[in-house]
């Protein structure tokens, strides 16, 4: 049985402090039952303000048309698709933590998976806004859905990567939401059963779906989580692969590359982990969850950041090499002149991307830096700035100089409504996140309890004692026959 399983002493513990099951409940559910702090209100109000700015920007764009954005004939995709890819990418870390690390039996995922999954859902919600509002006539958005209609019936083109994207993103959102919420049910029941206030009992009573904690239900719940993890793992890889197909299946120099799928997925995980760090470093401090989201978690995630950052770096260099080796004149020009040439109009963005994504994460080869919260927080922001510029470089520098010099675009800078839309998605994201940390358990309570007696620091110390007694005695004492 897992709870009594022998756990290597080499691995550091994942729960600090002396905890029992009840203390875990108190620590994680406590902040939900307390009144919101001033900091929470300030953050929430700023987020809502950003959201309102976003709503105004989008409304303006819907009333006056996509011409409110500074997109043009040559630069048909600018900030909107950059932001779309950026947000989708951020979502990927949540699924990686919740699904892939579950399959790999990585116990450290337990401290961070709930918040990371919530981040995934909110990020995908933000991402979805961009293609939808970019349609212009958004009231006809349902045309993308295949259903027998009176227009022919006119079906969408199932061979188009843009339609694959519709399926990929909506499936991703649905599956992530189901995975997240099915994991939340037991914790909702925990809040319900200790609630003193009437409305809280009613609200969490509805939200917990009548969960009791029955052994049979747990057995099914475990099976469900495992299979959903198994489904989410190829799903998450497929989502950013399909997003990269939006570019890679075209014939634009700079987009037409077979390296895109793995390169996009690595980049997505990279930026996603950076966002997880940004959120959790603040969350653990504000909600006093340092015992559950420990330096160990921060350290491991920084290792993933340096790994994926380096994969992305290799991809950048491979792309560069192939543009020379492939001897395609258009692609060669695109890379040499539009990106690498620092004096070209967007040359600066290429170096910003290289500096933020490839060079700066190398600092995490040093353990001291990985365990430094200030450095980690700073780096997590830098990485996301870099990843935003990666998408900007890929999209804009590939198209602003069209095949014919007469079609070359003038310098593209976003209009206030494009900026407002982007700010608005931050508003949406953080409004959701603030509501999440106020009303939902930020850490999976039941899962922490599940690993507490093998990965909790105080329990590990006890294990060391029992280890010195004798192996046979330990096995005899802790084993049980099924």
């Amino acid at each position, binding site marked *: *049985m*897992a*709870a009594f399983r022998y756990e290597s002493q080499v691995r550091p513990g994942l729960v600090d402090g002396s905890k*029992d*099951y*009840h203390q875990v*409940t108190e620590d994680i559910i406590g902040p939900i039952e307390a009144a919101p702090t001033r900091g929470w209100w300030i953050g929430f109000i700023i987020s809502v303000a950003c959201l309102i700015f976003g709503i105004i920007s989008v409304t303006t764009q819907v009333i006056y048309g996509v011409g409110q954005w500074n997109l043009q004939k040559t630069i048909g995709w600018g900030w909107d698709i950059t932001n779309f890819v950026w947000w989708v990418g951020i979502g990927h870390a949540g699924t990686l933590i919740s699904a892939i690390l579950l399959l790999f039996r990585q116990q450290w995922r337990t401290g961070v998976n709930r918040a990371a999954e919530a981040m995934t859902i909110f990020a995908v919600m933000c991402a979805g806004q961009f293609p939808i509002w970019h349609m212009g006539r958004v009231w006809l958005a349902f045309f993308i859905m*295949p259903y027998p209609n009176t227009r022919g*019936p*006119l*079906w969408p*083109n*199932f*061979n188009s990567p843009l339609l694959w994207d519709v*399926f*990929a993103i909506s*499936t991703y959102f*649905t*599956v992530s939401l*189901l*995975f997240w919420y*099915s994991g939340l049910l*037991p914790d909702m*029941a*925990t809040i319900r*059963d*200790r609630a003193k206030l*009437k*409305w809280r*009992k*009613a609200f*969490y*009573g509805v939200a917990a*779906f*009548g*969960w*009791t*904690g029955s*052994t*049979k*239900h*747990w*057995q*099914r*719940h*475990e*099976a*469900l989580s495992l*299979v*959903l993890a198994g*489904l*989410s793992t*190829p*799903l998450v890889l*497929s989502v950013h692969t*399909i997003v990269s197909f939006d570019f890679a299946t075209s014939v634009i120099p700079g987009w037409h590359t077979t390296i895109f799928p793995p390169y996009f997925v690595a980049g997505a995980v990279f930026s996603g982990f950076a966002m997880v760090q940004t959120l959790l470093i603040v969350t653990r401090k504000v909600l006093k969850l340092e015992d559950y989201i420990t330096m160990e978690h921060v350290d491991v995630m920084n290792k993933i950041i340096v790994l994926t950052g380096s994969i992305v770096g290799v991809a950048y260099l491979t792309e560069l090499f192939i543009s020379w080796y492939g001897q395609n004149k258009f692609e060669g020009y695109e890379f040499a002149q539009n990106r690498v040439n620092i004096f070209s109009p967007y040359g600066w963005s290429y170096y910003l991307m290289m500096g933020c994504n490839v060079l700066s994460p190398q600092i995490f080869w040093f353990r001291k830096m990985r365990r430094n919260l200030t450095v980690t927080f700073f780096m997590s922001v830098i990485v996301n700035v870099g990843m935003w510029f990666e998408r900007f470089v890929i999209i804009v520098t590939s198209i602003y100089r069209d095949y014919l010099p007469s079609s070359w675009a003038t310098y593209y800078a976003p209009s206030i409504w494009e900026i407002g839309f982007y700010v608005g998605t931050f508003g949406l994201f953080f409004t959701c996140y603030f509501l999440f940390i106020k009303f939902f358990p930020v850490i999976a309570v*039941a899962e922490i*309890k599940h690993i507490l007696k093998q990965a909790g620091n105080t329990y590990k110390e006890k294990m060391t004692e029992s280890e010195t007694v004798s192996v046979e005695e330990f096995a005899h004492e802790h084993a*049980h026959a*099924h």
Partner: protein
Amino acid sequence: MAVKKFVVGVFTDEKVLFPAVKKVRSAGYKIHDVYTPMPIHGLDHAMGLRETSLHTAGFIYGITGTTTALSCIGWIFNSDWPLNFGGKSHFDLPAWIPITFELTVLFSAVGMVLTFCYLCQLAPFVRKHHFNLRATDDQFTMVIECTEKTNEAEVSSFLQSVGAVNINTQVAETGWWLGRYDTDKLPYNTQGLN
């Protein structure tokens, strides 16, 4: 809906719970259920529960998704409205792989979650009897069903001997009913039961 009588034993340590489950079963008592705050691996085996078939259901939903996607796209592009995309094949299987995959995952995930909720009878506004409110916090609650032959005092003392810290008898409805958790309206009458 059947209203029954139960002897409820509360344990505070899973190390005690495991041998207790075995002893209670070998003594011939029928365990109604054990409620735990987190999944405890092996407890289902100890209680003699069979493996869940939810995986199989997931697989069936998955292949339903695969066939739905392939047959729909195939029908649309070949017979309903065959469009010519630059002279490419109408039966363009490689280009359908992404959507087929996504629908496989979608059908499987949605189907499994709905099946899970159905099997466990979980839904918003569903209310169940909770034998111990700390069963979702830090206590392990073993519930033994009483039949007309059961001697409650004997069961209680047996539970005490295997390590239960708190033992009581409750009359409860084992299924569910619609209701809210902030109101105490029970659908059954506890009067008249011995």
